[in-house]
């Protein structure tokens, strides 16, 4: 059955990475990203919350037709993080997201993975229909958005009344 679920999730390959369907064995690494000593992802989760939270994103593949990938190194398959074309309840549009385990930050992996996930989002929705919501203080993620050629959408920030979160829009409507 897990194999059947895998058929729902396209495998994306980049120069250094393979983005594959998430599995239950990925949960501890998902938890590790949200560990309390983390430098920018804030809210800690216990194991139960982490399972539920990760399952929620995984369920997106069944309910929305898009969701989260586990980011692995080409070659030995080491898990290094996650990237997603996600959808939260009440969100007007899908969100491109990325998160790396601490040991793998600073090597351009997030940009490389998110670039592939963004292309997948474009294939589903066309350009200009996917955003990233990034905390105003999250300089590293803002840099990734810039490298992906995303642009701040000030009008959308105003419309949503956001103060501490920036909206980065990927691509432009043709």
């Amino acid at each position, binding site marked *: 059955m897990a194999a059947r679920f895998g058929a729902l999730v396209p495998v994306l390959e980049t120069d250094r990475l393979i983005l594959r369907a998430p599995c239950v064995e990925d949960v501890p690494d998902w938890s590790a990203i949200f560990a309390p000593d983390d430098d920018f992802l804030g809210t800690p989760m216990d194991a*139960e919350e982490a399972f539920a939270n990760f*399952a929620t994103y995984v369920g997106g593949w069944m309910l929305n037709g898009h969701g989260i990938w586990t980011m692995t190194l080409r070659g030995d398959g080491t898990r290094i993080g996650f990237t997603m074309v996600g959808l939260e309840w009440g969100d007007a549009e899908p969100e491109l997201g990325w998160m790396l385990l601490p040991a793998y930050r600073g090597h351009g992996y997030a940009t490389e993975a998110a670039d592939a996930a963004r292309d997948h989002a474009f294939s589903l929705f066309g350009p200009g229909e996917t955003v990233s919501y990034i905390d105003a203080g999250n300089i590293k993620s803002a840099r990734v958005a810039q490298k992906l050629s995303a642009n701040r959408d000030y009008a959308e920030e105003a419309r949503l009344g956001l103060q501490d979160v920036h909206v980065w829009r990927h691509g432009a409507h043709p």
Partner: protein
Amino acid sequence: MTSPVLHTERLVLSAPGPEDMDAMVQFFSEDRAQFYGGPLGPGPAWRRFSEYAGQWAFRGYGFFAVRLKDGGATIGLAGPYHPGDFPEPEMAWLLTSEAYEGKGYAREASTAVLAHLFSDLKWRSVVSYIDPDNHASRALALKLGAEPDRDSPPPPAALPGVQAFRHWPGANRVVA
């Protein structure tokens, strides 16, 4: 997605999908959802049902969506619920609306799921955790042939006060 589809006289059971979301959000909004972590607002309900779907993907089993053959309406869920903190999968069931109660749907769906777990997946037994105040579920568990299981591993801390009932292969043959 190719996943098992179970057919009964009046029902079709298959993996959760987007067509079930509205009925589940409605279900979680009502007091009837009290034994399922509710009532919940639409956002938390949306996330909870997404989590159910994700569990199916993770584990290869989970809640089946229960739909009427006649018209296709989503009337409930039935299947082994297995979040991160449960010691084992739990056979659970719910009907999305009071309007579907009293018609034998939960029994019909659960009978099919139990047969699937024991015959197709070769499970040796499965537990149901039942709140002492949930008289309808207790009655159904007994009708399905489950027995109180005092030797069960401790129920999850998230379900204080529940009683463990255990279903065994072959027990589910009680005729109404």
